[in-house]
């Protein structure tokens, strides 16, 4: 009896503990935690990520500058995406200490905190983005602040000049009206010229640890000023590189111009039907390990797999020509601007026309248009640079399928059974003949 009661009490206690654990998990109180925050280079630009305490792996690109910073912040669980988030606005405190990089258990590098800033021109973000570190970061930030100041002053000067211009123009017009003067264009007050908008963007002067390592597996840990290792600071660091570079194409057809597909590899054949126009837009791409690349962007990502590769599109390729060879002919085409003209009336429809700046307002898209005229046609394409050199991994094949001959496939499929029946009949006939002879 006593044993039974003890058992019941134990079970009740266990259930209460379990329920409490769930309640604590669901309504978790914000906690101060040591985390890493990163500004990583993804192959074309810098992005930021957040590595929560329970995430043990960090991925970065090889031989590229990336930044990791050690911070104390409040973290919370966000059930909608099943992720740990940081409340940077509540607490964002840098942690003093050194970042140690280990390989095979040996410390290979001890990093000190450094200043950094990221700047880019908004007119060409991918072409101009730059990470400045150390003294250069301070100088760049000062230069940016000076440029901001100059811009503000120039803007203020322009506003003042414009106000003066407006006053002068009003006075001039009043004078013309009152005195009934005949004036020419030169008599009007000169309108001040507005200086160009400032397109340079910059982050604040931040602090972090600069990481630039060759391909390999490393471990990082954060050593505090008292010589101890910060709890939750030990992480596996995987440095990886692109598997290969290539040229990909965005492919779409005249009849479905808003729905495009990516042709990433040379072995991918582009099949289409006759009397169609295929549009191609080349771009530069790199292939990475799927897990490494996606976890670099989002360390809490769970769907990527290590045994798969992923092509990442980067910059559009311009100033190229496409060498097109048919069975006998060979020609070169360049990129053309197109305008999509909607059909007038209530019926849905459109025409894709070559862009004419005199009669059309904006370019709908720019691409290399290729006509697939007849069934059975085979078109080979390859990109060439401005000097006519063939670009590697840019060759593709377009095939116009003979859709009207599909019946042949079914006819061929029933041939074996017909053959079998013939064999069977012939065999039975032979056996019957043998029996008669016997």
């Amino acid at each position, binding site marked *: 009896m006593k044993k039974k009661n003890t058992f019941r009490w134990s079970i009740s206690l266990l259930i209460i503990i379990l329920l409490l654990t769930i309640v604590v998990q669901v309504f978790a109180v914000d906690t101060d935690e040591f985390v890493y925050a990163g500004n990583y280079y993804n192959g074309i630009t810098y992005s930021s990520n957040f590595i929560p305490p329970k995430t043990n792996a960090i991925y970065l690109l090889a031989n590229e500058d990336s930044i990791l910073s050690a911070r104390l912040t409040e973290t919370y669980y966000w*059930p909608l*995406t*099943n*992720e740990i988030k940081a409340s940077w606005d509540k607490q964002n405190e840098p942690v003093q200490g050194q970042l140690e990089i280990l390989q095979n258990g040996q410390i290979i590098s001890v990093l000190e905190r450094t200043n950094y800033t990221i700047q880019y021109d908004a007119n060409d973000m991918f072409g101009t983005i730059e990470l400045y570190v150390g003294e250069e970061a301070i100088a760049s930030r000062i230069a940016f602040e000076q440029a901001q100041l100059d811009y503000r002053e120039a803007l203020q000067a322009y506003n003042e000049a414009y106000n003066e211009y407006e006053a002068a123009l009003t006075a001039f017009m009043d004078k013309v009206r009152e005195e009934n003067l005949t004036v020419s264009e030169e008599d009007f007050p000169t309108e001040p010229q507005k200086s160009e908008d400032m397109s340079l963007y910059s982050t604040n002067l931040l602090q972090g640890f600069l990481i630039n390592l060759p391909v390999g597996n490393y471990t990082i840990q954060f050593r505090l000023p008292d010589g101890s290792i910060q709890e939750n600071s030990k992480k596996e660091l995987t440095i990886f590189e692109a598997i290969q570079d290539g040229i990909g194409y965005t*492919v*779409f*057809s*005249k*009849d*479905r111009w808003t*729905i495009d*597909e*990516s*042709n990433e*590899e040379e*072995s*991918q*054949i*582009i*099949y*289409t*039907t006759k009397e*169609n126009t*295929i549009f191609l837009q080349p771009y530069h791409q790199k292939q990475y390990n*799927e897990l490494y690349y*996606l976890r670099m962007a989002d360390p*809490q*990502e*769970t*769907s*990527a*797999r290590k045994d798969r590769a992923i092509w990442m599109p980067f910059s559009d390729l311009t100033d190229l020509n496409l060498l097109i060879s048919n069975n006998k002919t060979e020609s070169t085409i360049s990129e053309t601007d197109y305008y999509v003209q909607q059909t007038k009336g209530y019926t849905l429809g459109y025409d894709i026309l070559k862009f004419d700046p005199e009669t059309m307002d904006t370019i709908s898209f720019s691409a290399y248009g290729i006509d697939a005229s007849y*069934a*059975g*046609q*085979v078109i080979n394409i390859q990109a060439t640079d401005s000097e006519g050199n063939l670009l590697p991994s840019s060759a593709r*094949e377009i*095939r*116009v*399928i*003979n*859709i009207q*001959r*599909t019946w*042949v*496939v*079914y006819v*061929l*499929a*029933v*041939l*074996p*059974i017909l*053959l*079998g*029946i013939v*064999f*069977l009949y012939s*065999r039975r006939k032979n056996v019957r003949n043998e029996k008669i002879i016997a």
Partner: protein
Amino acid sequence: MNKQKMKQQMHAILVLQKRMSQTRFWGVGIFLVMSISFIIASVLLINQLNYTQTNTILLEKEIMLIPLIINAILIALYLSFSSMVQIAREYEQGTYELLLYGPMDEKTFLLGYFISQIKIFLICLLATILWTLICIRQLNLALQPELFLIFLLSLLMTTQLISFGILFASISRNTRTSVIYFSLTMLFLAGIALADTIISRLVTITVSTANDPLLIVRDVLATINSVIQWVSPFSLMVNAINAALDQVWSIFTFNSVLILIEIILLLSISIWTIRRKGVRAA
């Protein structure tokens, strides 16, 4: 003496394989299976072409890949089943015991069956190559060099599957038992690989969230598949084909060699089992 014995064994193997393959072609079964597999392959191929007509564009590395894999698997399953049933029946009817009174031992008996099935598959493969080439020509599809590697791998997969069938027949020596165990094993191997492929495509990076329940299913399937992919003829073939299409020759060679090793291993175990268990049916 050994040379004489080897000659006799070789003769016995050839006679047995000739008898078995002739029997197969005298029946209508293999022709029916070929037609069914071609019809299924045709439906899959035409479906892709109809998709191209609707979508106006289709981007494919090897448009014949899925039709050819399905075609090869159906024929291979038929051949492995039939070889397994025939061997089990030889036991049950006592003809195996009779054969051993002649110039035949366990090895020649199994190799005779094995070679006869390979011979039949090679004839089917010839028909498949013809069907493929005519389809490619008539429909203006691309003839990629990798296509011939697919044919080679389908031969290896069939050979491995036939070896599996022979092993099951050798172990159970009973038609019903071997059919049940073989069917269950094949369903498990093919099912896991198929489910893993489908689920891993369903749970795509762009649309899935971290709390997607399919992620757990996918991870479980991926874990099981990571083990059985080294044994399953279907997985080994698909891995090698994908490697060939991606031109990763190290993986292609590794998987192909693994299939060959497993064929030798399966046949050796079958011969050892049949010797150990004797001539009587289970």
